[in-house]
């Protein structure tokens, strides 16, 4: 009996407990647990500043796209990974954000932070509008109905041509990308000029960090635990006092906002947007890409969303760039029977299946496993 109070005090008389032993809830909820996490955060911060100076324009641009998709994937993970609501309509929200850049930013000439804020508001609003309808549907029905959202969005984008430029698309070249004195189109710092892509890398990945932090803070709060309770068993959650509809709508709104911000940045990178990118067949492919990112990265982890975006987008670009000459069964791809485009499709589909079969919790779980192995060494088995 005497042993119990001694565990509850921070410093038991017989020496220090293992540093991994969490004695109260607040320690478990910390953002960065242990020295390794802190070291990793420092390394990331260093990489953030070093990368634009050391990689080629092409690679940097790919990393910019990775960042854009990461923002969207974090949003989808909040909805699918943490709340358990399947959405194949993510591209519609993404498109709404892209048109905020194109119309408000480029056509109407709003300042950067204003149209990004508008994208957040539009995303929240559409998510909040779709949410109550979606909350009525479950699982399989929800998945297919969200596909309907893509077709409705495409029709709207194509026919509302005073805003979207209609089927022939609209340029985003006139949108200002400046925060105060920092113009990210041609960043000037200390007498040095940086290219558009270098500036965008810093801007986008700063927003990735911001989104990740926000998401992380949501999931480790009361609201986040409510979302996960709904995912795990919504009826049980309701019984213990969580209102599923309210939280589901909230999750849809958040996911919508993230996707819209991602879309706004995407439009800036692309310099041009067209309705067909966000609706119909291509929109469905984009939505599927987001889902694939969170599956490969790790469903229900914020960090995994970023890993997934990096893997899927970087991998796709890598095949497109290097695939033509790569030997597949000993024959260079372009000389064999698959084109690089087809190879990309096969690998994309194949990886989704393989991850779900072998490691359904994605790269994040793989990382966790490695970490645990080292943490519990020499008793790792």
């Amino acid at each position, binding site marked *: 009996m005497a042993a119990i109070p001694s565990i509850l005090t921070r410093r038991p008389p017989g020496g220090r407990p293992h540093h991994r032993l969490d004695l109260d809830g607040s320690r478990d909820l910390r953002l960065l647990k242990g020295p390794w996490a802190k070291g990793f955060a420092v390394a990331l911060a260093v990489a953030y500043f070093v990368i634009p100076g050391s990689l080629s324009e092409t690679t940097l641009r790919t990393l910019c796209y990775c960042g854009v998709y990461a923002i969207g994937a974090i949003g989808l993970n909040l909805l*699918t990974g943490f709340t*358990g609501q*399947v959405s194949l309509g993510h591209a519609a929200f993404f498109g709404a954000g892209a048109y905020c850049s194109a119309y408000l930013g480029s056509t109407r000439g709003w300042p950067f932070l204003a149209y990004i804020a508008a994208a957040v508001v539009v995303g929240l609003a559409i998510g909040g509008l779709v949410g109550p*309808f979606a909350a*009525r*549907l*479950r*699982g*399989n*029905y929800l*998945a*297919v*109905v969200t*596909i*309907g959202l893509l*077709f*409705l969005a*495409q*029709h709207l984008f*194509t*026919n509302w041509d005073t805003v979207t430029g209609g089927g022939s698309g609209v340029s985003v070249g006139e949108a200002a990308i400046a925060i105060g004195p920092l113009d990210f189109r041609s960043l000037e710092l200390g007498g040095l000029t940086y290219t558009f892509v270098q500036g965008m890398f810093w801007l986008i990945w700063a927003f990735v960090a911001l989104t990740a932090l926000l998401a992380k803070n949501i999931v480790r709060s009361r609201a986040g635990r409510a979302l996960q309770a709904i995912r795990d*068993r919504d*009826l*049980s959650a309701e*019984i213990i006092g969580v209102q599923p509809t309210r939280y589901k709508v909230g999750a849809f709104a958040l996911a919508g906002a993230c996707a819209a911000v991602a879309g706004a940045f995407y439009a800036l990178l692309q310099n041009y947007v067209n309705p067909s990118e966000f609706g*119909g*067949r291509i929109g*469905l492919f984009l939505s*599927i890409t987001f*889902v*694939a990112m969170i*599956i490969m990265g790790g469903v229900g982890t914020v960090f995994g969303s970023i890993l997934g975006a990096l893997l899927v987008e970087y991998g796709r670009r890598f095949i497109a760039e290097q695939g033509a000459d790569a030997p597949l069964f000993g024959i260079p791809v372009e000389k064999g*029977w*698959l*084109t690089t485009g*087809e*190879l990309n*499709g*096969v690998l*994309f*589909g*194949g*990886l*989704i*299946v393989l991850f*779900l*079969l072998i490691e*359904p919790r994605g790269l994040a779980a793989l990382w966790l496993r490695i970490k645990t192995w080292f943490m519990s060494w020499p008793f790792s088995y």
Partner: protein
Amino acid sequence: MSGLLLGAISADAWIETIFSGVALGAKYALVALGFVVVFKATGVINFAQASLVLVGGYLCWNFAATWGWNFYLALLASMVGGALLGLLLEVLILRRMSGEAPFTLIMVTIGILFVIDNIVTAIWGAEGRDLPDPWGLRTYRFGKVDIAVADVWTIGITVLVLGAFFAMFRLTTLGLAMRASALDQEAALAQGIAPKRVYQVAWACAGAVGAVAGVMLASGSGSLNPALGLLALVAFPAMILGGLESPGGAVIGGIIIGLVQQLTALLAPEYFDWIGSGFEVVSPYFVMVIILLVRPTGLFGQKEVRRV
């Protein structure tokens, strides 16, 4: 009254449009039946059904056009081929995933879809092909109304497949086993039903029906091309409308969607031009969303019983 209803559109145009809507709906229904048989037995929404449709169509073309087989023999062979492919998918992949969340199962079938679609274009190319079906462009003529022979066959075959499903689910022990195992897998297991067999049969059926759907989509005025998978996307609203587990519902859903699409194309330019061009492409989804808001499990779907 008739003047008000018909307006600028002739009675013949109405009849032809409605018939083409039903024929188109029958094609969607054939695709949707493939979805339903897998869902009913295994609880999986099989996005890869679109690839089974594609593979079936190309197999039939390969047998009939390249190897010169008799068309009906080629159709049967492609059904066997489709069934084998369905079986293979079940044994290699889906079997290992049983009991997973709907989200996971959907994504597995989407992954399969990407792999198969790209391999199909790699093998047979992206060229459009004309299927050497015996119906061609022949039509039956009733007064001034032309009705395509291929469309009549499509409707007939859809009814036939629906009848076969009905007979299988209601009259055979296998069908009973499928229904039981879909209802409650553990209870079915306790009654001595082997779920493996049920799953295999369901996937094989889906493959065979997919092949028929592929051939019917490509016959008559249609053609065989990789975009057939897109048509299968329109079968989603059909399946959802009818309720995921009802074969009869899939057929009715398909016909509703076909009619809605054709009537939109007929009436939109005349009466509601403001809605924007190309609304017939969107209308199936529009109808689906509205019906689902009223009935969240479709017209004939079973209300889900949820337990804590």
